[in-house]
């Protein structure tokens, strides 16, 4: 979080993630030449290396871009999201390896600078209608910028919004990679495995993102039900018992922002639903030690006041919550208790009294 910067804040989970990542990539790069030789005995080691590193980078980027929508569609994929940045940086290194082998083999004796050769090569005789090496370089340039600014230091320096905007360029990079492969290797590759993996991978990334966007769209499209309360208009957040203990639910503010209505034991509070780190969905997080924890990278905010626990200094706006008997509208039985949320944000870090769901039961845990 924001308290100072270290190169990598290693945790046990991160170490396991990285070891698994590096071992899988090493196994892929090690096994590819063996399997390749079995299928195509005449293939040269240089070509094998080029294909191994290139296909590995494509698969890695495909997986990296699938993790986000998969995690939004099914929470079981969330652990993969946790350390995605290391995945991304390693993918860039592998892509760089692919460029190295391409340059070393095809352009080693070129009278021109290898980069100039790549950009000026006539690719039409190779079957490509478009200059595929150029798309590869465009993708690599974007990935380089992203790898360079992947550290939290840069996120702080650029600001979360600008940083996120920059890193959304990965989608453009992916499209460039698809063009690079589609008009490059795909035109002459005869292996059905290659063809199948490429088509399925690129199609899966597209479909997953559209599915996840549709789900997000559906949440935004939910009509806000207003209830008169305490001299103002409050949002009806539904039955009081619909939030599982230790979890949160999203309520969409009329301005389109999401509020996380959190339950910790019998206490319910509401804080801003967007994490200050990378805009993660706090309302999908868990309550740990009295803090709502972002499912993306574990940033925490006290449920009582939206403040990160010391020594961290992030603060989120909080929202007033109330319980009121239902008036029978919206299909709820009259008299059933419903949660209401005041859509007016309180200044970040404002401590607000939580609502107690069962006043007669002993307090399960305090919000702080």
């Amino acid at each position, binding site marked *: 979080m924001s308290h100072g910067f270290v190169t990598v804040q290693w945790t046990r989970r991160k170490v396991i993630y990285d070891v698994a990542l590096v071992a899988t990539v090493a196994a892929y790069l090690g096994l590819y030449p063996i399997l390749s030789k079995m299928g*195509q*005995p*005449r*293939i*040269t080691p240089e*070509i094998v290396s080029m294909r191994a590193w290139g296909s590995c980078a494509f698969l890695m980027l495909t997986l990296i871009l699938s993790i986000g929508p998969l995690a939004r569609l099914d929470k079981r994929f969330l652990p993969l999201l946790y350390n995605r940045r290391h995945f991304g940086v390693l993918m860039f290194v592998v892509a760089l390896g692919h460029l190295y082998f391409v340059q070393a*083999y*095809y*352009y*080693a*004796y*070129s*009278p021109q600078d290898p980069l100039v050769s790549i950009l000026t090569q006539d690719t039409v*005789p*190779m*079957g490509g*209608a478009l200059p595929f090496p150029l798309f590869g370089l465009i993708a690599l340039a974007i990935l380089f910028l992203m790898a360079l600014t992947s550290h939290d230091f840069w996120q702080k320096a650029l600001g979360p*919004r600008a940083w*996120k*905007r920059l890193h*959304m360029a990965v*989608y*453009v990079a*992916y*499209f460039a990679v*698809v*063009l690079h492969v*589609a*008009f490059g290797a*795909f*035109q*002459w*590759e*005869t292996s059905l495995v290659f063809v199948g993996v490429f*088509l399925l991978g*690129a*199609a899966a*990334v*597209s*479909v997953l*993102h*559209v599915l996840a*966007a549709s789900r*997000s*769209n559906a949440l*935004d499209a939910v009509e806000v039900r207003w209830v008169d309360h305490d001299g103002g208009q409050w949002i009806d957040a539904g039955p009081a018992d619909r939030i599982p203990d230790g979890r949160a639910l999203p309520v969409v503010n009329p*301005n*389109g*922002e*999401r509020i996380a209505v959190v339950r910790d034991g019998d206490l319910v509070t509401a804080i801003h639903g*967007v994490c200050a780190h990378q*805009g*993660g*969905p706090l309302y999908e997080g868990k309550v740990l030690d009295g803090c709502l924890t972002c499912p993306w990278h574990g940033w925490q905010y006290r449920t009582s006041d939206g403040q990160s626990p010391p020594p961290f200094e992030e603060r989120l706006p909080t929202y007033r919550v109330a319980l009121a008997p239902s008036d029978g509208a919206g299909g709820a039985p009259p008299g059933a208790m419903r949660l209401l949320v005041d859509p007016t944000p309180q200044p970040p870090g404002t401590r607000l009294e939580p609502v107690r769901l069962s006043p007669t039961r002993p307090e399960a845990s305090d919000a702080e």
Partner: protein
Amino acid sequence: MTRGQRLAHRRLWWVLAPLIVATLIYAVVFRQTVPVEGPPTTLRPARAPGEAAP
């Protein structure tokens, strides 16, 4: 994500997904496989001065 980021993300994918799928369809339809193993002849590297032909 903030509302703006969510909208930008959605709009980007409404454009990118059809573009990617269209690229894949185009690449499949106009695919020109080279019926030899190894690299296509046009991609063979230039030889160094004095280097013997393979």
